[in-house]
């Protein structure tokens, strides 16, 4: 057993209103630069829909992720090391900017410089790539809210696969369809294909928190990672010639703050926390034969931090005490492993993604209510979950490689929670049958409800700081003998370094660490008492 820690995310899709706030704040933070105009580290796509970039999930075309070779070993779908080096002079399957969309601005000068006249001046779109006038024909969310579905909908790779595999036809007529939003960021995979694909070794997974980053100094612009990532979450900056990707807002995570997309999410639907996993088991889990077993296999990689054996091993492997404690309180672990309502996105790509999703119950509730039944009654909902084959099959293609059972189980639990809580709200005593039907106790259901519906800031984000381990050592060294700088090789209390004040090594200012946490509590607490 080799214990490693991963900061993971869970999104509750029922709550996503498709407002794109997360995308916009992310863009303002990370990609509002020339060269990255077309890149959205966080994007929100409407499903069914082609996604962004167009049809990215069609790996027959884009060759992303891993596959098993004839001997059952993992290999990159885009080809082995030799093939990749031989084709390094032109990546044969790299999406061009047209597959994302051609970024544009408007010719605002025609507005400001327009002479006084009777007609309204129009600012025409100008391509940000060529500077020439262009027609706007596609964008990062062109098919938002099922826009243009009769034309584009059937090109959704998931819809195509359902058609081919189970013979289910997804309808796009207004009354017959269903939809939900799928916000996507980099999955910070346990078995990242982008890292494996990079010939320069510039992409790496951080050992402490599992965040996958691109070293901008080491990247040489070979673009293999763009192909390697099956989620197409690596973007090539066409000005600097370097690959860039979602950073999981690591500077914020390091000091215990949630990512920008989580912090600004209007639906408050994102959860962040630590998961412990066994790094020795990852490859085996990613190479199970049947795609439908990948979800269970990945669950098997996660470790239970309440198990003393695991805690011992974690400590042996250098995981800080705060992290182990954070893993026990992790909302992400509760949603993934305890309640088993969160599911991975496209596990069949075999990268072991670490941003998981709670499938949306709302298409089901809506269908039941639209048919004139009580959409909050457990019996009706359970029945509908079984009957609504098409949405369930669609979700299964997204989250469990086509196996409807885990999706159904997850939705059943959400339905049971809905009806149990409704009883409580109406002052009835729930008889526990709804909870029992999904194998949970009423207490568990209420805890789950607390996490999903109340979802206080502190419950949603349990992020140990990167420096916590270091900070504790600093505090300890500060207290007993008076001087925090009196450690081995430190400059000691001499005050100034060799070249005057502030020269030499500096240490973390302890006071500001402390007031930082006090301030944070004041800013984020839901309790007015904390505000003083």
């Amino acid at each position: 057993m080799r214990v490693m820690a991963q900061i993971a995310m869970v999104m509750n899709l029922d709550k996503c209103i498709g407002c794109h706030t997360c995308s916009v704040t992310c863009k303002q933070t990370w990609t509002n630069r020339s060269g990255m105009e077309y890149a959205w580290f966080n994007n929100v796509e409407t499903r069914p829909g082609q996604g962004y970039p167009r049809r990215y999930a069609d790996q027959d075309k884009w060759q992303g992720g891993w596959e098993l070779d004839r001997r059952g070993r993992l290999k990159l779908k885009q080809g082995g090391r030799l093939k990749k080096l031989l084709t390094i002079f032109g990546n044969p399957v790299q999406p061009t900017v047209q597959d994302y969309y051609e970024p544009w601005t408007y010719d605002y000068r025609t507005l400001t410089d327009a002479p006084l006249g009777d007609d309204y001046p129009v600012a025409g779109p100008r391509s940000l790539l060529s500077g020439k006038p262009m027609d706007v024909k596609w964008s990062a969310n062109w098919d938002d809210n099922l826009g243009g579905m009769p034309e584009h909908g059937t090109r959704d790779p998931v819809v195509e696969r359902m058609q081919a595999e189970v013979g289910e036809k997804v309808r796009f007529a207004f009354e017959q369809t269903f939809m939900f939003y799928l916000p996507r960021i980099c999955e910070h995979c346990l078995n990242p294909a982008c890292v494996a694909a990079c010939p320069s070794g510039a992409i790496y997974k951080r050992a402490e928190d599992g965040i996958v980053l691109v070293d901008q100094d080491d990247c040489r612009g070979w673009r293999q990672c763009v192909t390697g990532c099956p989620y197409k979450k690596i973007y090539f900056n066409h000005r600097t010639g370097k690959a860039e990707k979602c950073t999981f807002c690591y500077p914020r995570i390091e000091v215990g703050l949630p990512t920008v997309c989580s912090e600004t999410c209007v639906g408050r639907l994102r959860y962040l926390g630590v998961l412990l996993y066994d790094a020795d088991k990852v490859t085996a889990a990613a190479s199970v034969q049947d795609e439908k077993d990948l979800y269970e296999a990945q669950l098997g990689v996660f470790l239970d931090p309440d198990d003393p054996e695991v805690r011992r091993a974690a400590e042996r492997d250098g995981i800080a005490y705060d992290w182990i404690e954070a893993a026990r309180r992790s909302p992400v672990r509760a949603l993934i492993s305890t309640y088993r309502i969160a599911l991975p996105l496209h596990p069949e790509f075999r990268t072991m993604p670490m941003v998981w999703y709670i499938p949306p119950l709302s298409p089901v509730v809506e269908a039941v209510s639209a048919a004139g039944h009580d959409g909050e009654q457990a019996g009706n909902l359970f029945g509908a979950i079984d009957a609504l084959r098409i949405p369930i099959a669609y979700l299964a293609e997204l989250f469990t490689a086509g196996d409807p059972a885990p999706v159904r189980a997850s939705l059943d639990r959400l339905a049971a929670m809905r009806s149990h809580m409704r009883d409580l709200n109406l002052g009835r005593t729930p008889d526990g049958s709804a909870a029992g039907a999904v194998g949970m106790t009423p207490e568990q259901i209420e805890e789950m409800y607390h996490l999903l519906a109340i979802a206080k800031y502190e419950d949603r984000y349990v992020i140990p700081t990167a420096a916590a381990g270091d900070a504790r050592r600093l505090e300890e060294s500060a207290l007993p003998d008076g001087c925090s700088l009196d450690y081995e090789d430190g400059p000691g209390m001499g005050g100034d370094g060799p070249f005057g004040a502030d020269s030499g090594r500096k240490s973390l200012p302890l006071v500001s660490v402390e007031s930082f946490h006090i301030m944070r509590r004041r800013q984020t607490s839901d309790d007015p008492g904390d505000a003083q």
Partner: protein
Amino acid sequence: MDILLWGALPYVAFASLVGGLWWRHKYDQFGWTTRSSEVYESTLLNIASPLFHYGILAVLGGHLLGLFVPASWTDAIGISEHGYHLISLFAGTLAGVLAIAGILMLVYRRRTNAPVFRATTGNDKFMYVFLVGNIVLGLTAKLAHSSISSGYNYRETIAPWARSLFTLQPKVDLMNGVPLAYQVHAVVGMFLIAIVPFTRLVHMFSLPLQYFFRPYVVYRSRDPKQLGEVKPRRGWERVDS
């Protein structure tokens, strides 16, 4: 003049190459990239770029063979001067033509595709002139002084001169009678070598051969200096270690 061109310039070029690479590595790793334009246009690039790169690699191999493998070695494995000439003529011309065809397509693409053209810097244009120019020069020099039966034997003049550079006693006289086309080609070539570190050509030094030898997934630790620069204190040993 001869001493300047054939005795000093090679060393200047070499110093510029090595010094420039060191400088670039130390101060501008961020700019060290292929600056690929494949996101703009992929179809033509996927034909032209491999064509050019494989062509130019073959040309490079030919130069190494011609300049640094003495005629006596090839004689020793039974390749006659005429045989060598034919190989060098046909294989060399083929490689040169491939490289030229590739680079002409690349230049055409660069000029006609608006986004690609907009992404072309002055530095790139400057470099392209010398690169294209020198490939053409080299091919003309070769073809102008060759026929099927015989050709200019640079392995008696240019090659020994090139090798003598390594002994730090350049045999400048050897370059005296060399046809002008070859001389120009050599001078421009040395200039190209000198500017490699300062142009996008620098990406030739990052051919990622290490990829064959590393595990697929790379882990790195957060730089501990970024937060609290305190080394862990000596203390109790960790359990199980």
